[in-house]
């Protein structure tokens, strides 16, 4: 059954009977929320016959027109009504009671039970009113008045809004259309005359009404998925004939039918080539005809061309692909042999993103960092570390843990670190993923990569970031002191920027130590270095190929220079000066010692450099080297507060 049709979630024995719990696909609610629909499907794929119940109504007495009038307004495409007199309300026959119980419906009395029975059989909800309990002989379909109240059959009170459709008499609502009947015209033992209703309501109106009232019923479920308006007549006649047979009623002549726009029959044309094209296999003409006929389609064939008329109950079928699906599933997908596509080779473009990002991940893995995935969300608690105006909030998330979209990867990683500290001392983790924020009324999504480490200090982390940036990107990367981010320690934070001059600078990310406030909040031990980079921005500076840098053949000379500078002088400033003076011949200025303490004046630090001089085309003489060294020393000494200490 599941290979052609729907999944059977369970088979249960109820008394001497069985129930099949069938997971009907939402597109097939229109015909398969009914026993007839299921029977038709089974017949189609097994090749068995099925019969719909025969309906014969004996009408008697005056015409229905003399008994009732209707006024239909609002979201109702068809309203059919029958009047039945002289019913004898009693318990239903055992077989009806049993079948209803098996399907989970409580038997009430023969009239109500028959309405439910026919609903299960045909998929069309029906309702019976006690005609003598109504205020007048007019049935009105209209929207509820504001704050209008109704008590339903289960004795619950509802206050209605004006978007809800009701069935009313001339005085008040007698039922919530398509959802539930009211208690006033309830059919009980005293009932003699009934109005039997089978109608078709707008799915959206019923769905909204049902949601609004938080009331879902067997009827509303069927209406909100949409059923054919053709069905009302079939169902009402079946129910009326059963009531006449079982409850001894007398069916009044005629059917009151409000049906302003008759549903049109749909026809779909296709040829056998269409079937072959989509399924990739040949299904014989005979088989196509058999399948479609079994499913209730009327089929006309002219050679290989088909014109099929869609039966009214198949609200889901309207295009040729729908028909091909019917053929395919009944024919059996298992009967289609796999066949490799035969196409000319059209080279695809290359989207490098995937490869590139994988190579970044692999590099960080080789640095000892493990990749984690965190939720794309943060909670209120973590949100306080970010600018509230920039946070993007979600509508009714299942848990407050997911209240905001993450504006940074760091909160998740920091939490990972805190939790892993129970089991590990050295922790190095990273994540690559999307972050979200709003700015100037726009909402943005950006990809980032972030790192958290309790096994690196600031400088070893910086070394890794440098190597990463140097391997894949331009070299124009600088670190600028900053105190702008509350996740980072104010004193130990660097902005990572591209470009040395302010005008061309672009911020790529940040590196620093974690703030002590967060450390305390999350009970983190030891010092932790964190960093986050904007992937899209750094990708702009990506280097596709690396140019070979010539290896110098002539021997280098080295000189050491140490300079005493005030403690807060940035290294970059000193280095910059040395490089400027050293010029082309200065191949490298390597900082080999930073010292402050004994033998050094208060508030000063000593920076010791080893300078490597080398030329491309010659061995440079010691005379030249000395001259360069002196030039550097002179320039350093020229800065007030700096003092060199050199040895040759």
């Amino acid at each position, binding site marked *: 059954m*599941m*290979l052609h049709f*729907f*999944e059977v979630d369970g088979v249960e024995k109820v008394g001497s009977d069985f129930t099949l719990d069938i997971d009907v696909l*939402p*597109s*097939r609610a229109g015909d398969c929320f009914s026993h007839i629909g299921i029977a038709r499907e089974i017949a189609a794929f097994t090749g068995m016959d099925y019969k719909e119940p025969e309906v014969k109504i004996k009408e008697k007495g005056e015409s229905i027109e003399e008994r009732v009038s209707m006024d239909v307004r609002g979201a109702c495409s068809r309203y059919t009504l029958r009047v039945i007199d002289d019913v004898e309300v009693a318990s239903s026959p055992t077989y009806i009671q049993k079948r209803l119980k098996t399907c989970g419906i409580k038997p009430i009395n023969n009239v109500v039970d028959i309405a439910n029975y026919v609903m299960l059989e045909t998929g069309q909800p029906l309702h019976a009113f006690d005609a003598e309990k109504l205020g007048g002989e007019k049935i009105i379909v209209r929207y509820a008045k504001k704050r209008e109240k109704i008590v339903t059959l289960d004795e619950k009170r509802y206050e209605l809004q004006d978007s809800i459709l009701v069935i009313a008499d001339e005085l008040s609502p007698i039922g919530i259309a398509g959802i539930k009947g009211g208690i006033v015209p309830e059919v009980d033992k005293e009932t003699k005359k009934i109005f039997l209703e089978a109608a078709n309501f707008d*799915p959206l109106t019923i769905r909204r009404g049902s949601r609004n009232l938080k009331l879902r019923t067997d009827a509303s479920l069927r209406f909100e998925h949409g059923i054919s308006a053709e069905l009302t007549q079939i169902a009402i006649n079946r129910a009326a004939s059963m009531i006449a047979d079982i409850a001894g009623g007398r069916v009044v002549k005629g059917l009151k039918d409000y049906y302003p726009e008759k549903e049109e029959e749909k026809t779909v044309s296709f040829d056998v080539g269409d079937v*072959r*094209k989509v*399924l*990739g*296999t040949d299904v014989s003409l005979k088989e196509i005809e058999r399948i479609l006929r079994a499913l209730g389609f009327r089929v006309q064939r002219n050679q290989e061309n088909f014109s099929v008329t869609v039966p009214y109950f198949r609200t889901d079928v309207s*295009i040729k*692909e*729908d028909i*091909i*699906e019917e053929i395919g599933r009944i024919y059996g*997908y*298992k009967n*289609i*042999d796999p*066949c*490799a*596509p035969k196409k000319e080779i059209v080279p*695809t473009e290359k*989207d490098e993103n*995937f490869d590139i990002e*994988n190579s970044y*991940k*692999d590099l960080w*893995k080789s*640095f*000892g960092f*493990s*990749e*984690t*995935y*965190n*939720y*794309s969300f943060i909670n209120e608690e973590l949100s306080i570390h970010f600018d509230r105006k920039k946070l*993007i*909030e*979600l*509508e*009714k*998330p*299942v*848990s407050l843990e997911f209240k905001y*979209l993450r504006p940074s990867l760091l909160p998740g*990683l920091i939490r*990972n670190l805190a*939790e*892993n500290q129970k*089991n*590990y001392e050295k*922790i190095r983790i990273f994540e690559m*993923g*999307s972050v979200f924020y709003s700015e100037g009324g726009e*909402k943005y999504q950006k990809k980032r990569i972030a790192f958290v480490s309790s096994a690196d200090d600031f400088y070893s982390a910086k070394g890794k970031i440098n190597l990463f940036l140097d391997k894949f990107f331009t070299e124009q990367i600088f670190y600028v002191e900053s105190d702008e981010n509350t996740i980072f320690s104010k004193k130990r934070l660097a902005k990572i920027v591209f470009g040395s001059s302010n005008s061309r600078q672009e911020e790529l990310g940040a590196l620093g130590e974690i703030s002590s406030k967060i450390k305390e909040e999350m009970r983190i031990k030891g010092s932790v270095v964190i960093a986050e980079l904007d992937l899209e921005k750094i990708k702009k500076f990506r280097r596709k190929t690396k140019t070979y840098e010539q290896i110098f053949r002539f021997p280098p000379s080295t000189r050491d220079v140490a300079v005493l500078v005030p403690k807060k002088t940035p290294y970059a400033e000193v280095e910059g000066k040395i490089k400027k003076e050293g010029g082309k011949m200065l191949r490298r200025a390597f900082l080999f010692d930073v010292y402050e303490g004994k033998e050094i004046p208060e508030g000063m630090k000593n920076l010791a450099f080893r300078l490597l001089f080398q030329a491309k085309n010659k061995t440079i003489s010691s005379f030249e080297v000395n001259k360069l060294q002196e030039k550097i020393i002179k320039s350093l000494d020229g800065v007030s507060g700096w003092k060199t200490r050199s040895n040759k």
Partner: protein
Amino acid sequence: MKDISQLKEEFLKELKKAKKAEERRKICKKYIEEELSSVFCSIKNLAGEKRTKIGKEANELRRFILEQQKKEKEKRKEGEGWIDVTLPGNDPEMGTIHPLTQLQRRCVDIFSRMGFLAVEGPEMENEWYNFDALNFKEDHPVREMQDTLFVKQKNRESLPAKDKLLMRTQTSPVQVRYMEKRKPPFRIIVPGRVFRNEATDSSHEINFYQLEGLMVGENISVANFKAIINFFFQELFYDDIDFRLRPSFFPFTEPSFEVDISCSICAKKGCSVCKNTGWIEVMGAGMVHPNVLESAKVDSAKFNGFAFGVGLDRFAMIEHKIDDIRLFYGGDLRFLKQF
């Protein structure tokens, strides 16, 4: 004076008897410093030819003994360098790549061998791409099949669908985004994170990963689809995997199928993973609905194709026998370090 060849024999005999390296060393020393030096002393008194002959022989012996001495020395050196090879090795400081990344890489690799290109799209989507363009009718119950996580926006109701933001419930919107900017044929796969607003438990997460596939061209069929995914399953599971299609419903495909694979854990005999059915549901698929092609400005009269989506988390769980999906998003190194 001793005969040199006799001396050599004695030396070898003694050396052979000695069991300890120490003793052997002493023997070598004794023969060079005592026995041979007395030989050298006494040959001074010999004359002519005999002196040359014995001298030569004695020198040969000396070289021989020195050689033995050297060998002994090397043996000693090696002995000092002895290590316990059974001691555990030190762990290298190497990180690990997340199991879902590893799985995505493998999938991308398998499909790229069939000419499929991996592309990406935004996780924060708008309603038009996530629903309207994919043939989800407005306000139809099928929109509620997926619990959508909506972004809070002022006056949301009055915004056009293209401005109403949500977290994508599937990777399918990328199909439309990709197609509308290009001309067929298309062969793409889209790995990525998707979202559902549902309570988390061992098999449900608020975010998880999908891999979407799309092939569009002239005359693409269900049979082609079966061939492509057959290759994918065989490669992915390194195994003989059986699969089957069941009819299903998705707004964006017609016909639509669910794809089940045979349970590799119990070999179709029935176990807890496959709920005793022998089959595991792993993929939603179908032939792209003409309305979707039209939304993406593709001529549906000329072109058609198939699309499919798989849950990567589920594949990884099957492969590694992981019983709780939340492990993927918990950042626990005891879990991550295993991959």
